[in-house]
């Protein structure tokens, strides 16, 4: 492979604003008195709660068990008592079931697993089962169960680790690669063993030169190649990453395994390493708390169930009243209306936006400039599809391949008419899915 940074077609270049927190080492958040763990943290089926109110739990103990293949178990973030199982504000601004644990302050481990120190000689099936049991999901933001990707039904020849972190503001993966370089590489090696591969490739955007050189220093020990990626949003999207690194295109409606690839986030790789080597389930993650209103932007190691209000408090609170709170980055993050939402396995960032940066615009008619078409990394026609949706012609939107949209928001970002294109596509996808379900019922 050449040393030239790799890129994909299309994309946009938003100001990355990573300087706010990129140089801040990861701090471990202190033990809280109470954690409210949201039960459904993964894409797929929600797990089934196995504890009841009043139960004593140990740190790492099973709280909810997986209910099917595309589902993951949930574990206690600390030792203590289950004080409530009720609804709490969820990340999509709708109340969701959650388990409240009042900590006993002992923080005593009761992990159900034994460490597998000799992973090089362990059976790949045992290692995979550990990933299943540890409840590991895609920690870049999607929350897709990791073990599903590790069970390809087609031959796979490439394991890709996603260290692109293309979302502006977020620096959690950057700090992770810098501070836990060997854990990332170890995770990569374990994942490669599970898939029966010898090597892995890790893609990192060129705006993290320190992480790239540190990874390069250790990579050969683990049989991993480090590849520099061009700074271009959405470089960290699965399909774009695969194209940039291998030149292969995942078909519409297809999966990475259709082109022989498996992509895992770097934070998920570290979670895999922790689960195998230490025997720890996935109960914590590194999250960036950032934004101009934050007094002390930085990166913290939070346990799942930590309220957002506590996270912001740890970052010193706010200097000015923020206008918007997002979970995730500014491009794909979800706006919140409550500070009681808690950190989940896929909360990569907590972003506060000041009032000057929240644009209050009105949607104007499309001027057919074609900038959205140039920006679209999936080569679809955002302008045309949005008109189909505005006229409620969902059949037309379907013909125009709205299903290929990865909802990266590049089109909305460049649109000079401020058209809410991304939201239109979400609507179209939801309507098409609803129509299909209706038809299946008939």
């Amino acid at each position, binding site marked *: 492979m050449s040393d030239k940074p790799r890129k994909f077609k299309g994309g946009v270049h938003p100001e990355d604003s990573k300087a706010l927190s990129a140089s801040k080492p990861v701090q471990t958040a202190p033990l809280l008195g109470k954690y409210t763990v949201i039960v459904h943290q993964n894409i797929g089926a929600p797990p089934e709660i196995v504890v009841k109110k009043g139960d004593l739990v140990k740190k790492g103990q099973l709280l909810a068990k997986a209910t099917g293949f595309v589902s993951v178990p949930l574990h206690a973030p600390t030792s203590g008592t289950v004080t409530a199982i009720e*609804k709490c504000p969820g990340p*999509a*601004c709708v*109340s969701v079931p959650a388990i409240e644990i009042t900590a006993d302050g002992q923080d005593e481990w009761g992990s159900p697993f034994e460490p597998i120190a000799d992973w090089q000689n362990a059976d790949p099936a045992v290692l995979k089962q550990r990933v299943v049991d540890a409840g590991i999901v895609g920690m870049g933001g999607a929350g897709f169960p990791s073990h599903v990707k590790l069970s390809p039904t087609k031959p796979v020849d490439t394991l890709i680790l996603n260290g692109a972190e293309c979302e502006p503001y977020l620096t959690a993966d950057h700090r992770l690669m810098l501070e836990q370089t060997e854990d990332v590489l170890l995770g990569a090696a374990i994942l490669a063993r599970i898939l029966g591969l010898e090597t892995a490739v890790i893609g990192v955007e060129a705006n993290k030169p320190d992480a790239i050189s540190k990874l390069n220093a250790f990579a050969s020990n683990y049989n991993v190649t480090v590849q520099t990626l061009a700074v271009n949003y959405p470089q960290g999207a699965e399909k774009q990453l695969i194209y940039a690194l291998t030149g292969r295109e995942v078909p519409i409606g297809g999966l990475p395994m259709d082109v022989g690839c498996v992509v895992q986030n770097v934070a998920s790789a570290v979670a895999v390493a922790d689960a195998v080597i230490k025997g720890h389930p996935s109960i914590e993650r590194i999250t960036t708390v950032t934004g101009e209103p934050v007094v002390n932007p930085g990166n913290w190691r939070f346990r799942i169930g930590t309220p957002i209000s506590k996270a912001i408090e740890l970052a010193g609170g706010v200097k000015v009243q923020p206008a918007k709170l997002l979970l995730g980055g500014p491009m794909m993050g979800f706006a919140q*209306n409550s500070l009681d939402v808690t950190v989940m396995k896929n909360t990569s960032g907590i972003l506060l936006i000041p009032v000057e940066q929240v644009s209050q615009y009105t949607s104007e008619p499309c001027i057919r400039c074609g900038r959205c078409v140039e920006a679209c990394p999936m080569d679809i026609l955002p302008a045309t599809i949005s008109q189909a949706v505005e006229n409620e012609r969902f059949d037309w939107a379907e013909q125009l391949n709205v299903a290929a949209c990865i909802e990266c928001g590049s089109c909305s970002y460049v649109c000079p008419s401020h058209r809410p294109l991304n*939201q239109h596509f*979400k609507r179209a996808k*939801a309507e098409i899915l609803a129509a299909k379900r209706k038809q299946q019922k008939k």
Partner: protein
Amino acid sequence: MMLIITAVLFTAGLGALLALIIGATARAFAVETDSRIETVTEMLPGVNCGGCGYAGCADFAKAIVEGRTLPVQCPVSTSVHTARIAEYLGITAGEKEKVIAVVRCGGSCAVTVRSPYNGVSDCRSAVLVAGGAKGCDFGCVGFASCARACPFDAIEMRDGLAVVHPELCIGCGKCVDTCPKNLIVLTPAAVDVHVYCNSPEKGAVKTKVCKTACIACRKCVKAADNETQMTVNGFLVADNYSNPPISDLVEKAKCPTKALRLASKHAAGAYEGVSK
């Protein structure tokens, strides 16, 4: 001169010939139509609302003439109109209870918590990005998807809340499917008392986000003429529409949050600015 006469005669002759051919073809290949269908279509309102369950007034007229349905199924026509159709066809008009739509939410901007939102102004799009802009997960989203769907302008958006005007609503049901929160139900037009709340949450949770939520205090259940007039489902009370309460219940029950309302007074704005 001769030239002009020849041209006129030739054109007239050609015209007559073609008229004959067209006339003969029309007679030979005539499509048998029931003239009654056209007459009945003209007697129908012509709004094409679809409230009858057929694809517009002409399709409905065809169904009536073919005996598949009865004139009364048209929700727009009054009894005078349906009787006229029945008389023309020599059938009975049939009987049907008139229904009207009720938006089961009283959460206008004045009484609910609301976050700023500037995306697509459509309820079904709004719920996809943040579950809607209001604090309540179950209430009216307030972006007028139902009002736009109403062919009779019977739904008014008042302070971010969809309000049905009972005197304008004909119960076609076009609005029902447009609500992403499934708030709209068709109820017997004779019933004026409704519970304007749809949240199954606990009272304490509801009152945090909405001042006019039903807190399931059961005052209305006790005040009703008999126990079965209101149904209690968890933390939410609703009318039992098969045995509905009468209008004076609102007066008698003294609902503390004013979630129990008269549809007619609600439309007239009598409950606006309710405070606790």
